[in-house]
Structures are given as structure tokens and as C-alpha cells.
């Protein structure tokens, strides 16, 4: 039996899915966490459960909504397990009415009962809807048994208002396409282009722009009238979200931006400073573990391979597990509390200048964890141009894998913690710069006019947070044990063996030194023209963690870079250059190969330019401070002059435009 889990966004569908199937799919207190269908068997049964992305209606607007619509209508599911939030039943049941109109067997799960703002009579609700209703909450025991029982009793009742729907020619065409005639009739009345196309309906039946209150709203009026009658006496005594209102008054007030920066600074400070001692302890343990292997009574190449290539390489990445864990945990707590959604509101005005909405902030912040996941999360953005732009620039935000690289190299050269913060800032600035440039080439499609729902504040569930952090840590460890270990070991072998001489002990005649050595002159102006640094950059395309793993196995940061300035230049390059393979694949999936290729090229060119400017300026400052000041003052002066000239030109153009239109009016 196949069952679809469906409902509005942020009602706890994936949390329920995880409980029923014992999975660890990502969850969060915001909209658009699930962007694709996840299917898994309910433990101990033959029921396959599919978690569909959240949507408000079966009239789809974005890519993820189309996935849900197609899943419900044509996915061939036997039952729809409809999840509704107890405090928002009226709006949630609206989608359920459409599922029932489509004659799908359904079960209603009323979730978050522990947060109910009044009494809810579930038995009465079940009697009125004529489908099984199960109440649950995250803190209650696993509802598996009651859900399975309800699935066996699932029903597809005929809704009373469907008698009012005229379905003649539509009925015949709908029956041919295996769609409920009443549902098709209502959707046509709403001018749903998708259903109109399927039924080859007249184009005149499609939308009329700017109309206010014509009969295209009749279907929704029928549904809401039915829902209001159904809920009469079911829900009583509604209190307001008093706590949410109070917190919103503070965090969305005049001090909204300082509060946001304060919170983000605290997140970074706690991540780096708290985890430092544990990280250095792990580093020492790795060295201790590698020492006996290096000195063991084995062939020299095997000692080196196991000690440096395997234990040293993977261990160098594992040493930064405390930082990565803390960053995961703190961002998860912020997401779960509902604050991250507010960031979208706080940053909306800012992102508007770059042709995006505050919704883009979700994806950029998710990019702090994993760029590939963040790219997939852009599906929730309805406008194609905005979606593609957000996906293209999201990998500029340094992911958790790069955090290990930053921390390891800055710690080796004793660079201050602010260097890491500056690298994160550089990533965000590069993303915004790229957005601005993209806007110059192609204008936006106009504002995304959609309402963006804000979840109420919730006390983060520690159990869920730890589960999510554990899942992320496990996935990090698996990456270290598979991709990082594999690529690191392969790179060590290629860097220490030559086709002609066999084991070379890392000398200049190895396979990798010949190949990477040919590319090294390109990176000389950036300060790291060493073949080992180039080898690390090549391996970083597989997974960013391997950067530090390879550097560590090929002699360490000190030997590879030689100076702190060269290391800082390498950090800038690794912060911005081409994203990992997983992210490029996600980009290609979401935006097409053309955008993915443009993104990879743009990242590398930006990285090269930023590193070149930094390294050459730093060298100049060392050699001739006076010349350095003169050059940079001239650059800043020229930039300010260009900005002022551009502003004056725009003001004149606007005035000219206004004058022309006034003259035209006068002539008329």
C-alpha cells in the first residue's frame, strides 16, 4: 500500500514521517524544508509512506507545489494522510477539501495538539468530515498504531457542496483523464491553467487579470463556507500567540538589524572559541595515533601512506568535528525557534535592492551548513530568474566543510579569529556582488508578490535538535571516511609515486607533481604556486574537506605555503572557488547545466581576482607602504567618483523622463 503525507507547509509532516519510518529527514520551524518526495516504509509494515512538499492548494505556483499536486492527483497513492496544524485548522482544511474533491481516500492527522490554543473536539470533526481523524503531537507517544488503524479506515466522502457544481462536458473529459469531474469543474471555475490544459478547455476560461471578486472565487467561498460549518463547535476558545507577539515587538522593532548581527556574532564566537580546546586535543590524538604507524617496521611507502595519507589526512579533518558540530547545533536551534524566518522579513528590504525577496535569505543561511542542500532549497522561490540567481550565488557562502579548512590554516599560522569571520563576510559580499552584476545583464521579473508566512516562536526541541545534529555529524563522519579518505589517499599515492621511478617520497618527479606543477605557475601571482597547494585545490572539487586532508598529508600548511600572507591568499581562493561536485550537480538539477557551468566559472574567476588583489596588495604593503597607500587611495577615489557620477546620471535621466512625460501630457 502507498500512502502520501500531504498538508500545508510547516505543519510537522516530516517530523511525523521521521517518527513513523524512523528516518532523519531534515526538519525545521520554517516553510519549504522539504522540497522533494521522500519515500520510506513504515517500520514493521508493508505501507510505503511518501513525504510530499507542503502546499496551500492544488493550484500549484512553485516547483515544489507542482510536485505535490502531481503526487496527489496522479501519484497513484492509495490513501492521502493529511496533516493539519491544530491552531490553523480553517486554512489547513482548505487543501483537504480539494483532496476530497479529487475523490482521494484521506485520513486527517491533527498535529501539535500540545500547542493548542483552545479545545478541539476531534470526534465531532471526524463525524462531520466522514474521515478518520487522529490527534498527535511531537511530545506524545509515537502515533504509529492509531495512524495505521486510521489508514485502514480511510474514506473518500462526497462533499455536500459538490452537488452545486455543474459538470457536463467537463465530466466526460475529466473521466477520460481519470480526474474527479467535480474537482475539475471547480478548478476550471478558478481558471486553473494546468487543469484547463489537461482537459483542453477553452482559453477564455483562463484568468482575468485585476478582477476583484468575480465568480472565479466561488469555489473557494463554497469550500470555506463548508469548513466554517464543519468547524462550528469543534474549535473553541482561541487565545492569541501572546509570546510570539511580544518577542516580535523586540526582534522586529527598530533594533532588528543590530539584534540579528549580535546573534550571528554570538554564533560564530561560540563556534570557534568554545570548540578550540577540544579541537586541538583531537589534533594531538591524531598525531599520536599516526606516530607508531609512521615508525612501524614496514616498507617506507606503506608507513608514509598509512601514517600521512590515511590517518594524518582524515584525522586533520576529523579534528574540526567540534566546530562543525557546534555550528550545526546553533543554526538548528535558531531555525527551530522560528527566528530564522524573521531574518527573511528583516532582510527583505535589503535583498530587494538585489532583485530578490527575503526568501533568498533562507537559502543563503542554509548555505552555512551545506551548499548542495541550500541550492535545492531555492525551489520554494516562485520566480524563475530569482530562483536561478539565488541558486547560482548560494555556493559563495562558506559551507561547514570550508570551516575546517579556515580553522586549520588560521590556527597553524596564528592568524586571529577575526580572519575566519572576515572570510565568511567575504563569501556573503561576493554573493551580493554577483547578484548585482547579474542584475545589470538581465532585469528581474518584478517583485515576488507572494505572502511569506511566519511561524510562531517555539521552544526548540532538544531531542529533535540533538537528533538532527547527530545525523549531520554522522553524515560528516561518513564523508570523511569515504570521499575525504578516498580522495586523500589517492592524492597521496599520486603525489608520492612516479610511473618511471616508483616510490619517490614526495619529490618533484611524482605523477601529481608533474601534473599540478604544470598548473602551478597560474597560481604563482596569488602566492601559492606550489604543486601541493594546486593538488589540494584539485582534490577540493570532490569535497571541500579534502583540501585540508591533502595539505596535511603532503607536508602540512607551513611547508606548503611558507608564509601567512600566502596562506591567507589560499584561504580567500578556497573560500570562493568552484563549489564541490555535489553542489554543481544540485545546481544543474535546479537551474540546468548552463547555469551550473556559469556558476562554476564565476566562482573561480572571482576567487582568482580576490586572491590576486589581496596577495599583490599585501606584498606591496610589505615592500613599499607609500606606494600601497597611493594606489589604494586612487582606487577608492575612482570608485567613489564613479558612484557619484552614476547617481547624478540616474537623477538627470529620471528628471528628463518626468519632463518628457509632462510635455507629452501637455501636448495631449
Amino acid at each position, binding site marked *: 500500500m502507498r500512502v502520501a503525507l500531504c498538508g500545508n507547509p510547516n505543519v510537522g509532516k516530516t517530523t511525523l514521517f521521521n517518527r513513523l519510518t524512523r528516518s532523519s529527514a531534515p526538519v525545521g520551524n520554517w516553510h519549504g524544508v522539504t522540497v522533494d518526495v521522500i519515500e520510506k516504509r513504515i517500520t514493521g509494515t508493508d505501507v510505503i509512506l511518501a513525504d510530499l512538499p507542503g502546499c496551500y492548494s492544488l493550484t500549484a505556483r512553485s516547483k515544489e507545489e507542482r510536485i505535490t499536486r502531481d503526487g496527489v492527483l496522479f501519484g497513484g497513492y492509495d490513501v492521502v494522510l493529511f496533516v493539519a496544524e491544530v491552531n490553523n485548522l480553517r486554512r489547513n482544511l482548505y487543501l483537504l477539501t480539494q483532496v476530497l474533491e479529487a475523490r482521494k481516500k484521506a485520513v486527517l492527522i491533527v498535529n501539535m495538539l500540545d500547542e493548542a490554543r483552545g479545545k478541539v473536539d476531534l470526534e465531532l470533526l471526524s463525524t462531520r468530515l466522514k474521515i478518520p481523524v487522529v490527534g498527535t503531537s511531537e511530545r506524545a507517544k509515537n502515533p504509529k498504531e492509531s495512524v495505521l488503524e486510521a489508514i485502514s479506515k480511510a474514506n473518500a466522502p462526497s462533499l455536500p457542496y459538490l452537488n452545486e457544481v455543474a459538470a457536463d462536458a467537463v465530466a466526460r473529459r475529466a473521466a477520460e483523464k481519470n480526474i474527479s469531474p467535480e474537482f475539475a469543474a471547480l478548478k476550471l471555475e478558478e481558471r486553473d491553467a494546468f487543469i484547463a490544459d489537461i482537459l483542453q478547455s477553452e482559453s477564455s476560461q483562463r484568468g482575468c487579470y485585476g478582477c476583484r471578486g468575480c465568480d472565479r472565487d466561488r469555489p473557494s467561498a463554497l469550500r470555506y463556507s463548508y469548513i466554517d460549518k464543519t468547524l462550528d463547535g469543534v474549535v473553541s476558545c482561541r487565545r492569541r500567540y501572546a509570546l510570539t507577539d511580544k518577542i516580535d515587538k523586540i526582534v522586529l522593532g527598530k533594533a532588528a538589524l543590530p539584534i540579528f548581527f549580535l546573534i550571528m556574532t554570538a554564533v560564530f564566537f561560540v563556534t570557534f572559541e568554545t570548540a578550540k580546546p577540544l579541537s586541538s586535543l583531537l589534533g594531538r590524538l591524531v598525531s599520536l595515533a599516526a606516530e607508531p604507524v609512521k615508525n612501524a617496521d614496514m616498507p617506507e611507502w606503506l608507513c608514509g601512506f598509512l601514517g600521512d595519507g590515511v590517518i594524518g589526512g582524515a584525522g586533520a579533518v576529523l579534528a574540526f568535528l567540534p566546530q562543525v558540530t557546534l555550528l550545526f547545533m546553533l543554526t538548528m536551534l535558531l531555525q527551530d525557534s522560528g527566528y530564522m524566518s524573521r531574518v527573511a522579513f528583516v532582510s527583505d528590504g535589503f535583498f530587494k535592492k538585489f532583485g530578490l525577496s527575503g526568501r533568498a535569505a533562507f537559502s543563503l543561511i542554509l548555505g552555512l551548513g551545506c551548499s548542495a542542500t541550500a541550492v535545492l532549497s531555492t525551489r520554494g522561490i516562485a520566480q524563475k530568474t530569482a530562483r536561478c540567481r539565488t541558486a547560482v550565488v548560494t555556493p559563495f557562502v562558506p559551507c561547514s566543510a570550508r570551516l575546517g579548512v579556515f580553522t586549520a590554516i588560521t590556527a597553524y599560522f596564528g592568524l586571529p579569529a577575526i580572519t575566519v569571520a572576515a572570510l565568511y563576510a567575504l563569501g556573503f559580499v561576493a554573493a551580493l556582488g554577483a547578484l548585482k552584476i547579474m542584475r545589470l545583464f538581465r532585469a528581474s521579473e518584478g517583485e515576488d508578490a507572494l*505572502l511569506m*508566512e511566519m511561524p510562531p516562536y517555539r521552544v526548540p526541541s532538544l531531542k529533535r535538535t540533538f537528533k538532527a545534529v547527530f545525523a549531520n555529524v554522522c553524515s560528516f563522519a561518513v564523508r570523511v571516511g569515504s570521499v575525504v579518505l578516498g580522495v586523500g589517499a589517492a592524492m597521496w599515492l599520486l603525489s608520492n609515486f612516479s610511473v618511471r621511478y616508483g616510490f619517490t617520497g614526495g619529490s618533484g618527479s611524482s605523477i601529481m607533481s608533474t601534473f599540478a606543477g604544470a598548473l602551478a605557475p597560474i597560481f604563482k601571482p596569488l602566492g601559492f604556486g606550489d604543486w601541493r597547494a594546486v593538488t589540494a585545490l584539485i582534490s577540493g572539487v570532490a569535497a571541500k574537506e579534502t583540501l585540508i586532508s591533502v595539505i596535511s598529508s603532503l607536508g602540512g600548511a607551513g611547508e606548503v605555503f611558507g608564509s601567512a600572507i600566502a596562506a591567507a591568499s589560499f584561504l580567500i581562493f578556497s573560500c570562493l572557488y568552484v563549489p564541490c561536485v555535489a553542489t554543481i550537480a544540485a545546481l544543474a538539477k535546479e537551474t540546468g547545466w548552463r547555469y551550473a557551468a556559469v556558476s562554476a566559472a564565476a566562482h573561480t574567476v572571482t576567487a582568482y581576482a580576490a586572491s590576486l588583489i589581496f596577495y599583490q596588495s599585501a606584498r606591496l604593503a610589505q615592500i613599499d607602504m607609500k606606494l600601497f597607500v597611493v594606489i589604494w587611495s586612487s582606487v577608492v577615489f575612482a570608485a567613489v567618483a564613479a558612484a557619484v557620477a552614476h547617481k547624478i546620471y540616474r537623477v538627470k535621466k529620471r528628471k528628463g523622463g518626468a519632463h518628457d512625460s509632462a510635455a507629452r501630457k501637455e501636448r495631449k
Partner: protein
Amino acid sequence: MNLSDYSLKRGVIVSVGCDDDTHRRLVDMGLIGADFYIKSRRGGAALIDYGDFSAVTRNALAREITVRER
């Protein structure tokens, strides 16, 4: 009076305009006839409580929503 120019904090939504897709979404969300409360205004958007849920509403959209005093 549209929601963007509305100077009071509370009111009732009378009708919504917008393009077909957005109109459909707003109607599906149950906005017609809903009471609202403007929690915060920021730049080109406002955070509005529509009774059962709060949502960020950009000014471009707010201009298409006709409201009246409660």
C-alpha cells in the same frame, strides 16, 4: 483604501486583486473577509497577523488588497 496606504493597525480585508496566480493563492489562504493586525512595517514590507497566521506582505502586494476599518 488599500493595505499599503492603510494607516490604522487593525482592519478587515474586503477584496484582493493581483495577477491570476497570486489572486488564487490569497483567496486560497482565506484572506477575503479576514481580520488583520499590522505587527510591524519595515522598508517595503509589513508583517501582518491575519488571525490564524502571520505573513510578510510586500508593499506591491499590499497595494492590491482592499481593506476597510473593522
